[in-house]
């Protein structure tokens, strides 16, 4: 059993506190899901830090942000500017997660987020033992739109029931 409860309040808390997101496996191609998600988060006020060794090798950038070869490298560059990585968001195969979890722990990230279809119980246990919150098999964009507005416009069951007026507009 995960220690990080997969609840609306936990997800809201994570998405409220984690403002800088290292997106591991971010593709430079506009029609890839990783690009969809990162572009959405960027336009909703989050700082996106692309991690993609192939693009980084050529000194490239994605979504206007410099690309890094690893989470460690990205964290060092941000630390030099007084910044930090709050969330490591993984668009990688489930079996590639353990070393990534180690990087997330080493960089002091608050949250390890594994995207739709990505699950690794051992790596998740390890990251939680080190104090990180871990979310598996969920899309950061879909959860943001579910909890802060927008996903309901696509007819999706957000499970949000509330009589409170939202204090941000859902776009």
């Amino acid at each position, binding site marked *: 059993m995960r220690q990080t409860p997969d*609840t609306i309040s936990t997800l809201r808390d994570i998405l409220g506190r984690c403002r800088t997101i290292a997106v591991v496996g971010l593709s430079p191609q506009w029609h890839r899901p990783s690009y969809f998600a990162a572009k959405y988060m960027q336009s909703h006020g989050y700082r996106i830090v692309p991690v993609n060794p192939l693009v980084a090798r050529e000194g490239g950038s994605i979504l206007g942000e410099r690309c890094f070869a690893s989470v460690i490298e990205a964290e060092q560059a941000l630390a030099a500017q007084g910044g930090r990585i709050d969330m490591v968001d993984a668009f990688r195969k489930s079996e590639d997660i353990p070393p990534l979890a180690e990087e997330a722990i080493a960089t002091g990230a608050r949250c390890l987020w594994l995207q739709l279809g990505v699950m690794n119980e051992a790596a998740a246990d390890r990251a939680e033992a080190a104090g990180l919150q871990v979310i598996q098999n969920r899309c950061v964009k*879909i959860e943001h739109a579910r909890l802060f507005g927008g996903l309901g416009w696509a007819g999706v069951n957000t*499970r949000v029931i509330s009589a409170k007026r939202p204090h941000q507009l859902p776009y």
Partner: protein
Amino acid sequence: MSKQPQSGDRDYGFGTRAIHAGAIPDPVTGARATPIHQTTSFVFDSAEHAASLFNLQTFGNVYSRISNPTVAVFEERVASLENARAALACASGMAAQMTALLAILKAGDHIVAASTLYGGTVGQLGVGFSRLGIETTFVDPSDVDNFARAIRPNTRAVYGETIGNPLVNVLDIAAVAEVAHAHGVPLVIDNTVASPYLCNPCDLGADIVVHSATKYLGGHGTTMGGVVVEGGKFPWDNGKFPEMVEPSRAYHGVKFYETFGDFGYTMKARMEVNRTFGAVLSPLSAWQLLQGTETLHLRMREHCRNALKVAQFLQQHPKVRWVNYPGLPDSPYFELAKKQFRTVDGLPGEGGKMPGASGILTFGIEGGAAAGEKFIDSCEFLSHLANIGDAKTLVIHPASTTHRQLNDEELAKAGVSADMVRLSVGIEDVDDILWDIDQALDRATRGAT
């Protein structure tokens, strides 16, 4: 460490969701009731915002043929009531089943469907779809093996109804789902007659649910509408649905399953079927259907209580030959009803564990077809019309109306006998319903034995 669950973590009950799901206060005005967004189009903030919306990279509204905020509240409401992942509203129930199937079928594909479906559906699948090169095999649904025997390599959907109409037969959804899944195809269930209050087919294994919202969801008989619901568990990457996983030709290269996961089917149906075929629900209709949905739980309990009392009254009536209602303990469908339908308080029998069986029932009248027609004409406030699921009690004699074109053999195959009267029992005072039935039976059968 232990933390009390915060607001938003609660599993809300059916009645709460029937009133609230999808409808939080308006963020701009604070309006508590759902506003009617009677607009065709929505402005873009910038060329960049427009591009993101068209690329589906952000959620938002472009044009009401694709999505509309009022319609979206109705979609989310029904998705919630069906314990499902997502929903897509359509102009009618017929549009909903067309959209549900065209999202995954193309020329050369094959459907296995129950032979006891609503006549309009038999026409859509058997005639309409066959013109498009999609063939349907209709099988007797009382034996689950019939579905398995009819499945071919090109079968891409299995289709049935929770409760058939006018046979009022009950489908073993879990068993048929098992057959469909063993062959890698989704089970599509029309849940109109049971309504989400009595049955959630996705919890029994169905993958896609369709409704004519015109019936119990609306309940007022004022508004046409339909809805397609996605359970969110079907593995669309099993090799049989390449259009769910490969780049979409109809929507510039989006991979629906990979990008949207457990609501990828709904996104595909929205962008490739509703957007291009155009049978969408209007915002005003969505709002009217939402007004009805708020009382679905109250109405369905009353429909079930009244229908059971009517069925029991008819069973002991000397002018009635037979009664078919799955809520009667001696009905051949009672055990399936008990297994699949919600218990409704206040129904006598089974130690307080009687399943609700909705409001549709049929009976045979002494004197056959002539008495059947006379019965209809003799009713004072039971409405003679071709709809079901209204708050009003509705009555029809299928052999002289909806099934008039059929000969005796075809009538028998459709399960319609000359003496059959169909009732859609409403939520008026049950004593008044029983009185009207009794006096009409008396007038219709005077002289008959």
